[in-house]
């Protein structure tokens, strides 16, 4: 899984003695414990990254935490985060914190690479799909109102500008990674104007990439195809909500939420997290969560910071550990603990011998 960042972005400069500062948002559920393991692993490997920890209290209605987090990410340029729970007991005006982060920082591309991993038993083999999901508009515009009591309207916004932008990102990523086909997922037969505009923009961008095949598929047919023949898909691009559905289906196909990392890229900032953005409340603090997705997300972050040596070293160790069935955590059908997995990764790295500065 040579998963360097799919598109070369300009990383923030390493300001202090060659060390980068990265904002860390623990989040809720399993976030804090898994991110603590990341810090532990980075210390062990002497990764030149310092974490600035910013907590966001999901129970609070105040905006202070969010503003601090956003400011910190603007300052550092990069963040690693856990999922922040959305409290349903708060009124509807309280918007999802995760969503606010994405829109405030204009992290317009959510990129998820779903690949079958050796050693993980799944129903489908040879899955290798890159999902590029528009991350800031569509159904997640948070524009709702109650016209009269009992009648609610929720606005889905599709703009030409953002559709062109995400399509451009998708085709560029496909080209840079030698991928042959981009499929746009939509429901333009029903949402003729909205998804119709999205599809139109994809077609326009496709014209500039003649070596890449462009096709489109309606979202319900796409899910049906994914569960029967997922090998047919290469790169997929889509608006926000369908992205949520497709990325979760694909993550499930390759082994579940514990394995797949996700990245959110904007022009100036990048935030890394797990692909399926789960809080994992029910398994929190029990040492049973699968740390693979979070650890691989930290590798994506290292690649973004151009610390490729560290990224591949850690990634190789993680993949070696995942292929070891007796270390599988409960989500993979095993009985391994989180700490056993992390220890194994560290041992794997250690066994490869000390690194000199030339190697890194």
């Amino acid at each position: 899984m040579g998963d360097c960042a799919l598109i070369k972005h300009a990383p923030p400069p390493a300001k202090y003695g060659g060390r980068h500062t990265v904002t860390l948002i623990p989040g809720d559920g399993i976030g804090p414990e898994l991110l603590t393991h990341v810090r532990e692993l980075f210390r062990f490997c002497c990764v030149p990254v310092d974490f600035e920890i910013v907590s966001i209290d999901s129970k609070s209605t105040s905006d202070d935490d969010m503003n601090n987090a956003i400011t910190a990410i603007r300052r550092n340029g990069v963040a690693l985060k856990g999922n922040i729970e959305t409290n349903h007991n708060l009124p509807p005006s309280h918007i999802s914190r995760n969503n606010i982060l994405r829109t405030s920082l204009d992290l317009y591309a959510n990129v998820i690479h779903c690949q079958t991993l050796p050693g993980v038993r799944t129903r489908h083999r040879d899955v290798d799909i890159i999902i590029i999901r528009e991350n800031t508009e569509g159904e997640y515009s948070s524009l709702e109102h109650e016209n009269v009591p009992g009648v609610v309207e929720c606005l889905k916004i599709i703009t030409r500008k953002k559709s062109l932008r995400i399509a451009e990102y998708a085709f560029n990523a496909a080209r840079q990674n030698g991928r042959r086909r981009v499929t746009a997922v939509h429901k333009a037969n029903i949402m003729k104007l909205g998804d119709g505009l999205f599809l139109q923009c994809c077609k326009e961008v496709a014209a500039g990439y003649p070596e890449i095949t462009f096709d489109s598929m309606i979202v319900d047919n796409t899910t049906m195809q994914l569960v029967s023949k997922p090998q047919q898909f290469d790169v997929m691009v889509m608006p926000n909500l369908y992205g949520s559905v497709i990325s979760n289906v694909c993550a499930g196909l390759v082994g579940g939420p514990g394995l797949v990392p996700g990245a959110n890229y904007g022009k100036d900032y990048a935030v890394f997290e797990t692909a399926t953005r789960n809080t994992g409340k029910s398994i929190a603090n029990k040492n049973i969560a699968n740390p693979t997705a979070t650890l691989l997300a930290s590798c994506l972050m290292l690649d973004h910071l151009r610390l490729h040596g560290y990224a591949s070293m850690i990634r190789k160790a993680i993949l070696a550990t995942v292929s070891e069935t007796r270390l599988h955590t409960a989500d993979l059908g095993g009985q391994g603990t989180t700490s056993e997995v992390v220890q194994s990764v560290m041992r794997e790295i250690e066994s490869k011998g000390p690194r000199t500065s030339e190697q890194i």
Partner: protein
Amino acid sequence: MAGNAWRSTVSRVVGAMKSQASHPRTFSRGLQTVTLIPGDGIGPEISTAVMKIFEAAKAPIQWEERNVTAIKGPGGKWMIPTEAKDSMDKSKIGLKGPLKTPIAAGHPSMNLLLRKTFDLYANVRPCVSIEGYKTPYTDVDLVTIRENTEGEYSGIEHVIVDGVVQSIKLITEEASQRIAEYAFEYARNNQRASVTAVHKANIMRMSDGLFLRKCREVAENFKDIKFTEMYLDTVCLNMVQDPTQFDVLVMPNLYGDILSDLCAGLIGGLGVTPSGNIGANGVAIFESVHGTAPDIAGKDLANPTALLLSAVMMLRHMGLHGQAKKIETACFDTIRDKKVLTKDLGGNSKCSEFTGEICRRVQDME
């Protein structure tokens, strides 16, 4: 107080019986008329297949064939032909093959027209793994119940300024309550243990929040059914890993569209998935949800399983459980046997041969 407990028990039992009665009266005596809409493409041949099988099973059904090509009524509004509407209003039960959606015919899709005419508010798709038709997923046994009148398919879209489009998702208290009530009643009447509301209320706080609230309220009146709620993305994630954890799922329009097709994919696709649409005023239309397959139309190659299983669902809805079981078993046995299968099921038999085999089995069961 004991008195209140007794009264609430009585009302619960009476309520259950009432909801049984809200289904059309059982048709154990005499023939029941069903409006049959063969449809386009392979529609006519699979409808013929179903009629043949029902005849072999001696099912007490009298078919009334009707056409639903859109016509322009007084006032310029598109509507279905009067004969079709009258037939359905009288019989209350319909069986429909695939209808083609003409592009640029000027009128809305026929399916949409039917939905509006009869206020078909609930789309019900039971997805059960078919023994003998192998897919990577086994032991699937769930039902998706999708709100079919509003939500993201309200059809309300505007171009705000050039390059900015707004599509409106509409959620109303009334429609949410209605679909939730149907889902719980369905669960109760079909001995299902739990109902799960599927939503995205963390993002769509007000709209899905309203839907969720109504589901919670209705759940209060159905304490015998377990009620859970799950985010759409979590359902998708879990569905492809372990579909056996799901029972009855209820959700708004778009999620229902996606999930019902996802679940159909788990059991083998639209060619083997039944579907029913429940309307206000007791109308119910059962249909196959695959396309018209114009490339194989008229060549005796079509697979009638989807329409047949929808017809079986129809029999159950009418209370004719014995007949339903007989026909369903014959169909599943034929598929499991693998000797006479249509091309899409992996064989090379004709539609008529497949139909004949099922008829033979049904008759052998007498």
